[in-house]
């Protein structure tokens, strides 16, 4: 067997797998997005752009995009800051790192559904331990996830608590892999800690930071369990995320065509965003 034939045979299973798991569903979802595909109705005619137009007309779609957008910005901001602080702290304390790192990573090992249910208990207005401490400090109780003002904040608190350790772990791994020489040179040149951080650490960590941004953005777009359990998207549509919106249309209203159209509407700007991140990442690697 020639090398080319051998290579083809060896690669073929993976290609078939990719076609079945990725390519075929993607092509099918494009077809479905242009069809009237409600599984309760036997006919699935071609409807052109009707599903897309319908989605663009839904107020709930814009609410969901807005909520998801706020979550992406807020989570990325706070998780990066907290993740950095924790990573830098652990970097400075090599002896305690072994003990504290697994403890700090525990939140990401808990299922989001469990966090949602526990969140319902700890944030419940009447019996919340958080409200107990607020009352002790002289503040009024807050209705947290039941409040129009604080519902999304409550979700963000739980999510940031869960995912900051993940960011910490990635950044710590990046910090530990950085070369020593630039720091030695900076020390010789008399740079202080802040200057070292801004002019050496951050630029060298750019690819890692970009990776964190990409991974977290993709995960935030899929957030579902915690919202489903804690608020079901309410009060009103205060915590209705894009994935909950798509779930409702696809798996409660059974309009798979509209759900596919919604997914594709978001896919396009998301692809542009991810490409931008990747370009930054590649630029960072070239500079490094």
């Amino acid at each position, binding site marked *: 067997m020639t090398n080319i034939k051998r290579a083809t045979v060896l690669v073929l299973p993976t290609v078939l797998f990719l076609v079945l798991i990725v390519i075929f569903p993607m092509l099918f979802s494009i077809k479905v997005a242009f069809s009237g595909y409600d599984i*309760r109705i036997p006919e699935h005619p071609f409807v052109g752009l009707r599903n897309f137009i319908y989605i663009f007309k839904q107020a*709930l779609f814009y609410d969901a995009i807005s909520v998801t957008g706020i979550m992406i910005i807020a989570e990325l901001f706070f998780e990066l800051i907290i993740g950095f602080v924790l990573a830098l702290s652990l970097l400075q304390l090599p002896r305690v790192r072994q003990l504290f790192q697994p403890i700090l990573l525990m939140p990401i090992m808990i299922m989001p559904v469990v966090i949602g249910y526990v969140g319902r208990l700890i944030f419940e207005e*009447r019996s919340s331990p958080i409200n107990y401490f607020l009352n002790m400090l002289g503040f009024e109780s807050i*209705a*947290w996830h*039941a409040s129009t003002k604080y519902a999304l904040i409550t979700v963000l608190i739980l999510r940031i608590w869960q995912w900051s350790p993940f960011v910490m772990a990635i950044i710590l791994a990046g910090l530990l892999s950085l070369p020593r020489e630039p720091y030695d040179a900076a020390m010789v040149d008399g740079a202080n800690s802040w200057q070292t951080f801004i002019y050496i650490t951050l630029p060298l960590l750019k690819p890692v930071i970009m990776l964190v941004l990409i991974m977290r953005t993709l995960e935030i777009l899929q957030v579902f369990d915690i919202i489903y359990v804690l608020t*079901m998207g309410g009060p*009103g*549509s205060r915590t209705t995320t894009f994935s909950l919106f798509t779930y409702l249309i696809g798996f*409660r209203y059974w309009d798979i065509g509209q759900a596919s159209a919604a997914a594709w509407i978001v896919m396009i700007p998301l692809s542009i965003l991810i490409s931008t991140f990747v370009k930054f990442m590649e630029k960072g690697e070239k500079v490094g």
Partner: protein
Amino acid sequence: MKRLMIIIVCFLLILSFSLLANGQGKPFDGITVTAAVHSGHQVAPWYSEEGNIKEKYGIKLNVIEITQDEMYSREFLELTQRTGVYDIIQYNSAWIGDFEPYVLPLDDYVTKDNDAIGYSDILPAFNKAQNIWGGKRVSTTIDGDTFLFYYRKDLFKDEGEKSAFKAKFGYELPDPPKTWQEVVDIAKFFTRNKGEKLAGRTLIKDFYGYADQAKRGRVYYWYLFRFVPFNAPNPHYFNPDTMEPNINSLGSIAALENMMELLKYSPPGVLGWEWDELYKAAMGDGTVAMWIHWTDEGRGFDKLTPLPIENPPLPELGISATPGVELNGKLYQFTIVDSAWVGSICKDSKNPDAAYEVLKHMFGAGPVNLHYIMDSTIGWDAFRYSHFNSPEWRQKVPGIEKYLEIELEALEQDSYPMLKIPGAFEYTDVLDLNVSKYLAGDFKTAKEALDVVASKWSELNNKFGLNKQKEFYSKIW
């Protein structure tokens, strides 16, 4: 060797005779019936009866547990794809509009065995709201869910509060309240802060006049409790002739405004309340004067916590039908019968006769079903006359007769079904979303919110086919 062979042959002969003997008299020997059921506490009777069903009928029962939230989607997927995986499905009868093509009518079975399952023993309210669809029996009731109005009778009986109420509002404190306007007055009257007086004693916690389950995904029920009476005397979800939505009528708007009004006298977290939170606040904390809920409080009347005051009186739970509306001097009260849980045989079942025997065994009139109905941990509520009139239940749980008699009375007055047409979930979810948005302050007026619902309901009518929806809608009544 020869002796050994003789022993083996004799053993095999004895074994086959005994197997034959066991096989005799079991009509469905070797048949497996698969039942898709609600997971959690409701599944226990199925496992408990597995052995009895095997012994009596020879049927091997295969129980598939599904969580409540996933029942619609998982069952509907299997039914529409005609997989034949399930023989029996437990489902919410509100979904019958979507499930109808896939479930087997049971009338032939009922005729053949002279109603051995006991439809005549099931309250007409449950047969009408749950089991009969387009004139055919398509299911049997599993859970007699309905809604009752609960209130703190110990508080309502206080003479000091009664006088103060009359002085403020000009009429006697009604026990029980009969109209939604009375509920608003009473809720306003009884909402007090910690440190104030209630029933002549100092409150140790904030106390609230009323509470709903107002969480997104649940709140539509608590709207419908008002929608129905506020649209008396002949409430309808749609105009039966034109299918024009009635959800934004003047009565419907008044109903939603009533809901918003009562929010002022509710605990701050109600917009996030599901079953647990309302039950705990009302029964566990004792900080709510009035609420509407399923029948669990009625069955667990002795679990009511004392009022949150110093030296409280003995707790006493008041139970009545849900409030109505007075129109031209006449009181219109309706008891919404929750579509609740029913059991049907799937059309694609390979063993429908065996499946029917299982349904009869589990839910037919008799001691098996009564045993589980009496067990408050299971979550199956009474739905037969033989349940409500059971001397055994009265003996087992002293005091239960009060709840049973009131519920029976509530169900024998005007009962009202939930919406059951194709896409029912979508219609109610649209209503739920916009009611939730109104209560959250996203709409300035109730009319605005309900106009959106009406518009969406019209869109859905067109999506499913106006004539088809009209035909299904007529089947509800």
